[in-house]
């Protein structure tokens, strides 16, 4: 049984929603984004922005696991012109991203998911399991000015692709393919309400993941256009990010070390951590006038696993959440005396912990209670 929703006439209060028809540039008045008619505004907007013609819409919602309420939603429109094109859209945004370099990440991801171990403010402890996001998929069809919400469809396959060169990682320099997230199901029939729920588990490596759906509509009372196997929706981008990291600013007395791993930039930190570094420099220069503190590592732009060995694995495990920096003295690292001086200066200036990591740097961090993982 399907539920057909007709495009309603504009209400007096509604603001006309105007979009440009693809190709001929004629202005077409689209259905108003009126939630009361049962079609989410994101879906209507996706059609409008996609050209306004007939086509299918995949609507993905993030669900609050405790309340069941929709947290956010994002719609992907596949116009009729693309129906014949069954070529799988690849996760090759990385090709463009390679040229774009840092940062290559999608500026408008569907969902921001904190990667594994990034729940610092709540638990002060890096969890061992990946972060999960509960989601639900709906499908819509827009045909001859009418909205149709499909209530009987099957996801034939759900595949995930890690977008290369995102999250600050330069994939080509790594020893293996970038880890990607996973879902609890990869296929299956929608439920009685026309929902296809699934859970996405982010990997601890920050970056973007594309989610690609192949699906088939089984609603028998829908126009033929809307039925049958459908082309894959455009990839949904799940971004695995630890937000609010900032780049540590260059300043007098603080030099950047060279980046020797396959990462675009490793000098990000929380604002708090970044604010401590000028103090470290000031106190260091109190004892070594004119001395230079060299920052050799912080976190990646969106945090997450900072695999300096380019293996998508530890060590360097703590540089995930912007609370940790590696320091030594310039030039040449400084020797044991200066490293010990930097270690003690870190503690004096506000870092909670500092440890000498022979032979070449001091690890300073203010993360309390972290037990590894």
């Amino acid at each position, binding site marked *: 049984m399907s539920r057909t929703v007709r495009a309603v006439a504009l209400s007096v209060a509604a603001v006309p929603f105007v979009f440009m028809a693809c190709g001929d540039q004629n202005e077409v008045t689209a259905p108003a984004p009126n939630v009361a008619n049962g079609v989410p505004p994101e879906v209507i907007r996706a059609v409008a922005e996609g050209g306004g013609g007939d086509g299918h819409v995949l609507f993905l919602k993030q669900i609050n696991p405790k309340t069941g309420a929709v947290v956010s939603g994002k719609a992907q429109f596949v116009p009729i012109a693309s129906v014949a094109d069954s070529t799988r859209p690849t996760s090759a945004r990385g090709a463009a991203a390679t040229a774009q370099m840092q940062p290559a990440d999608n500026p408008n991801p569907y969902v921001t998911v904190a990667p594994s171990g990034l729940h610092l403010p709540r638990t002060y402890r890096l969890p061992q399991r990946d972060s999960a996001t509960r989601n639900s998929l709906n499908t819509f069809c827009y045909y001859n000015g009418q909205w149709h919400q499909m209530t009987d469809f099957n996801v034939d396959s759900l595949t995930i692709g890690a977008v290369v060169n995102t999250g600050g990682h330069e994939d080509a320099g790594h020893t293996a393919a970038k880890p990607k997230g996973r879902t609890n199901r990869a296929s299956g029939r929608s439920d009685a309400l026309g929902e296809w729920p699934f859970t996405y588990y982010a990997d601890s490596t920050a970056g973007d993941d594309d989610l690609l759906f192949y699906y088939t509509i089984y609603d028998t009372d829908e126009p033929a256009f809307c039925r049958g196997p459908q082309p894959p929706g455009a990839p949904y981008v799940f971004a695995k990010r630890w937000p609010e990291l900032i780049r540590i600013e260059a300043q007098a007395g603080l030099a950047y070390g060279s980046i020797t791993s396959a990462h675009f930039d490793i000098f990000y930190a929380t604002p708090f951590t970044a604010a401590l570094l000028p*103090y470290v420099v*000031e106190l260091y220069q109190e004892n070594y006038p004119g001395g230079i503190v060299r920052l050799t590592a912080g976190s990646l732009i969106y945090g997450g696993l900072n695999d300096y060995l380019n293996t998508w694995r*530890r*060590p360097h495990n703590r540089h995930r959440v912007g609370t940790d920096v590696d320091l030594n003295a310039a030039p040449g690292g400084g*020797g*044991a005396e200066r490293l010990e001086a930097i270690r003690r*200066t870190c*503690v004096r*200036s506000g870092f909670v912990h500092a440890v000498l990591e022979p*032979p070449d740097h001091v690890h300073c961090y203010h993360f309390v209670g972290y037990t590894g993982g």
Partner: protein
Amino acid sequence: VVSLLVPSRGDDVRLTAAGFRMPTVEAGALALPLLWLLLSAPKVGAQITPADTMGMNYPGWESADQVAPRITVETSYDSVSGLWTYRYTIANDASARQAIWSIDFGLDPLAAPSRPLTAAAPPGWKALVYPYSQAALLPGATFFALYADDSLGPASGPPPARIPPGQSLSGFVVTSPYPPGYARSYVQGYVQLPAPPEDRDPIPPNDTTNSQRGLTIFPNQYIITPSVAPTDASAAAGARGLLRTMIPSPSGKGVRGMTLRGSVPIAVTFAAPKGKVQRATFRATLNGVEVTRAFHPAQSGGADFAAVFRRGTSPLVAGQNRLVATVEGVDPRTGRSTIDTSELRFTVRP
């Protein structure tokens, strides 16, 4: 909260609401250089207090608190330069299981001495200073023993100048215009730790917990505020508000309810407005014995005078002690000349 301290005659210091210090020249700094041999033993004998090591438990890890430090301080005041010199001798009791390789002194920021703060270390050691500034969350000073080979660091073996159990080392010197008060001390033993397992990233505890901790004498900017002192039992205020006396703690405020060991620093501040106190009339007795000459102008600190007393070289006794300070001036409430008295009682452990 730091409220406004109206400067008394002598204008040692002004504390503004923002907490900035604006030291001015002390007019009466004419005392001859004196020397006190002071003893402050935060941990005496074989008692070793376990440090808070925050659950460190990987194989081979060992806490650095298995030392038995005894810190002896010798202070002197140079009235010409206006500088106090603090000479420390660090002993490690024979009961210790580790050699001492670092000594840290720390104060609360507002009690910490500002620049100039200098330190010198004996051969084989390095001295670092952290004077009061916005950058220093834990101001003070640090001494640590150097490795035999600076390029190899810990791989070259334990620092040769470390202080083994049963031995002591002198030559640790701190110089400051700030008078003595209490600071926290953190003494660490040397531990050659194995590398942690690859699947672990253990966090070692902070130096201030992974150490033997105590109190010792160190330059201190006393924080004495009229808004706090009258209700603060730790600072004994004069009845007419002309002066108050206190034993400065690492926080810069008065020591309260603590049984003291070793040396006892005492600070005096004149709380009345400038011109209301006749500084030259200041007198002090300790257990009934005149000790006025033991007090020196505290040029740059929050107090007007400071002294350090030690058993054997002063009237200080084990058990209850009573210091009485008097000064003449004008009662700010009545406008009449008066003599104000501040009495401070404290206990010293035998």
